[in-house]
């Protein structure tokens, strides 16, 4: 792995300058402050909430829904993807259906979900699952179909039962693709949870941000947005950590190939 | 007056670990105008580095390169380097005709007869009829011909070729060797050729420099005096051919 990570002085400098511009620009124009409060105010709002505030409660609600939705999607998406990818006949059967449903933006499912499940947790999780399953499913199918036939024949030579082939050969061999799908699904799940909360929710960060906007508490609103961004960033980092551990074999292989 | 002079050329690389390795040790040689010369050496001995340095794409760590009495510090205007990976060098968004015309455009020729000239060159390299094809539609050998045509369109005085036939199958290689010799005798360009194929070098060149392993230095200079035009059957059948080949082989192995 090529190191040489010099500290990006100019980058942080320009970012810092931007923040300063924001801070003083906002202070200098009191009318603007309603829409764009200085970052110091936002941080203050954040601090207040962190100690004793509704924001933390909303955050945990959102995180809970996210985890439910994401892991459910992962299980469904990977399992379905492996099955559809491996059994050609099933894939042919479902292919047209998939091609039909794919172009529809998954958020359009929200009103249907509201109709069926109301505006509670189950609606939000259901919508999240619908949207998140897609990238996981597609990438898993892709991964399975790209597996070298030699690998599968090897499994057969060892007289492995079908389910063992799926579990011990197919799953690991397709894992790079699956990981890609899971990574994309991560951001999609977060987007859907917050979106659903915005459209029809009474709790959660999505709802909170919109609510604060309605009440013109821009400081709180930006604080909420910041929190969502931090959440997304943290989830990404966690994912990379887990992925590095689980996919150590591939990292080594890739490093050797590029050498 | 030589068209190309290399004086004490050496090139070091700095590794990511910080150490520096020498790719080229100390190269000194001269090439006369119109010659066909080759460098032969084992793989990884720094032949590409040598050629890139002569072409002005790399700065030497020591020594200098003089082309037409001017010291090289950047790509000289009358020289073209043909890369080994021709498929990465050809312009995928241009047809064969477009690629060859690029050579003319680079020379400053955007006139109406540029198309005609390009057409002529395409036929010269044996690709008549493929003008409107795109590189990905052609075989490896054909792609290499396009690269050669493009380089010739530039009308260089010096043509440097980096193992151009290395990744082609044996039969295509022989075909292209003869095509290249025909082009060379017609256009009278000076050609500096590098290869790891000893017999190819003997077949093509008038002079050969044998390179050592890294860091490369010139082990020997050999004059090849087989009559031209060379012939794949008769020239290679000469007893002297094998003698030279074995001589070079032994020198490289040591």
């Amino acid at each position, binding site marked *: 792995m090529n190191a040489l990570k010099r500290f*990006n002085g*100019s*980058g*942080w400098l*320009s*970012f810092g300058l931007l923040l300063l511009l924001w801070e003083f620009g906002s202070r200098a124009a009191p009318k603007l402050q309603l*829409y764009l409060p200085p970052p110091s105010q936002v941080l203050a709002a954040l601090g207040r909430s962190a100690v004793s505030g509704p924001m933390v409660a909303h955050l945990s609600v959102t995180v809970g829904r996210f985890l439910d939705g994401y892991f459910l999607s992962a299980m469904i998406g990977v399992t379905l993807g492996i099955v559809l990818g491996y059994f050609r006949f099933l894939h042919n*059967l*479902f*292919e*047209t*259906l998939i*091609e039909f*449903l794919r*172009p*529809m*933006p998954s*958020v*359009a499912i*929200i*009103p*249907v979900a*509201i*109709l*069926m499940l109301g505006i509670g947790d189950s609606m939000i999780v259901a919508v999240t699952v619908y949207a998140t399953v897609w990238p996981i499913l597609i990438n898993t199918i892709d991964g399975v179909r790209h597996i070298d036939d030699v690998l599968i024949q090897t499994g057969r030579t060892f007289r492995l039962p079908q389910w063992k082939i799926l579990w011990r050969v197919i799953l690991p061999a397709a894992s790079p693709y699956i990981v890609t799908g899971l990574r994309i699904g991560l951001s999609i799940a*977060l*987007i859907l949870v*917050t*979106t659903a909360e*915005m459209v029809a929710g009474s709790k959660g960060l*999505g709802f909170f*941000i*919109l609510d*604060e*906007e309605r009440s013109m508490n*821009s400081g709180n*609103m930006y604080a909420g*947005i910041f929190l969502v*961004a931090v959440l*997304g960033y943290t989830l*990404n980092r966690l994912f990379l950590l887990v992925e590095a551990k689980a996919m150590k074999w591939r990292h080594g292989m890739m490093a050797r190939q590029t050498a | 007056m030589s068209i190309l002079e290399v004086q004490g050329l050496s090139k070091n690389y700095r590794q990511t670990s910080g150490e520096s390795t020498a790719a080229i040790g100390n190269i000194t040689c001269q090439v006369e105008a119109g010659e066909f010369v080759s460098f032969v050496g084992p793989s990884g001995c720094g032949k590409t580095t040598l050629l*890139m340095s002569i*072409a002005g794409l790399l700065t030497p760590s020591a020594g200098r390169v003089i082309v037409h009495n001017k010291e090289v510090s950047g*790509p000289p205007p009358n020289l*073209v*380097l043909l*890369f080994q*990976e021709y498929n*990465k060098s050809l*312009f*995928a*968004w*241009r047809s064969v005709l477009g690629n060859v015309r*690029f*050579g003319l455009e*680079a020379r400053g020729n955007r006139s109406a007869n540029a198309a005609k000239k390009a057409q002529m060159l395409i036929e010269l390299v044996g690709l008549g009829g493929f003008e409107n094809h*795109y590189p*990905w*539609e052609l075989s490896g050998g054909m792609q290499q011909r396009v690269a050669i045509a493009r380089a010739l369109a*530039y009308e260089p005085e010096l043509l440097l070729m980096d193992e151009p036939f290395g990744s082609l199958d044996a039969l295509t290689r022989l075909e292209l060797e003869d095509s290249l010799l025909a082009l060379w005798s017609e256009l009278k360009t000076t050609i500096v050729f590098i290869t790891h194929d000893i017999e190819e070098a003997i077949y093509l060149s008038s002079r050969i420099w044998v390179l050592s392993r890294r860091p490369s230095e010139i082990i020997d200079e050999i004059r090849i005096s087989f009559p031209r035009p060379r012939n794949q059957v008769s020239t290679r059948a000469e007893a002297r051919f094998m003698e030279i080949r074995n001589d070079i082989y032994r020198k490289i192995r040591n």
Partner: protein
Amino acid sequence: MRRRKFHGFLFLAGLMVIWEIVSQIELINPLIVPPLSKILKNFTEMVLSGQIPRQILLSMKRAAAGYFLAAAVFIPLGILMGLSQRFYRMLIVTIEMLRPVPPPVVIPVAMLFFGLEDEMKIFVIFFACAWPILLNTFDGVRNLDWVLLNTAKTFGLSRARTIWQIILPAASPQIMTGLRVSLPIMLILVVISEMVGSTDGIGYFILDSQRRFKVAQMYAGMLSLALLGYLLNQLFNLLHRRLLSWHWGMMRRVE
């Protein structure tokens, strides 16, 4: 290959028949899942009366504006960042700070500044499409093979000519990828922004239909959205084939 598709179609048709039956015999509450025939009838009516096309046009106006604005700003920016290491380092920190913000979350900010007007949606789409376009463009310029760049050098091309004649064409497939990836993002965001803050557009239409319990209408709206997504994809492919015919040919051959 054709038999494959036939099986798929058959399966789909079978599902549609099952839907029709299941809803007609009220195995599933037809108030929530109306029969397919009713939905299709509703859909045809609304398309012919112009109601759905009108909503779609409104949405597409905003979507296109945001999309092309993003392309106009972020393709040049990506090229600049790809060419100049210094420029890249200057901007990358700010970009990495903004990137983790999920685009829908920006909607309330946009609402603060622009209310429920078109500009709100345009801004949101602009923000959302920025990253795929920027990053793909940057990648495309940055990851050009050194052989290509050295080829330009050995032919004595000036820096300007190298950028215009070599770097841009070589990077254009990747730039195209960024534009392609942004297309569904554009569609998603226009729907979301209309659901959260709008009084018209196809997104609002679907949500509003649900609120008024005009369920068949809601499904009809969803169908039109699926068709829109499909049409946009085909349109993009057409443009891809026209503008980058050389690349299109290359890609098809790999398949």
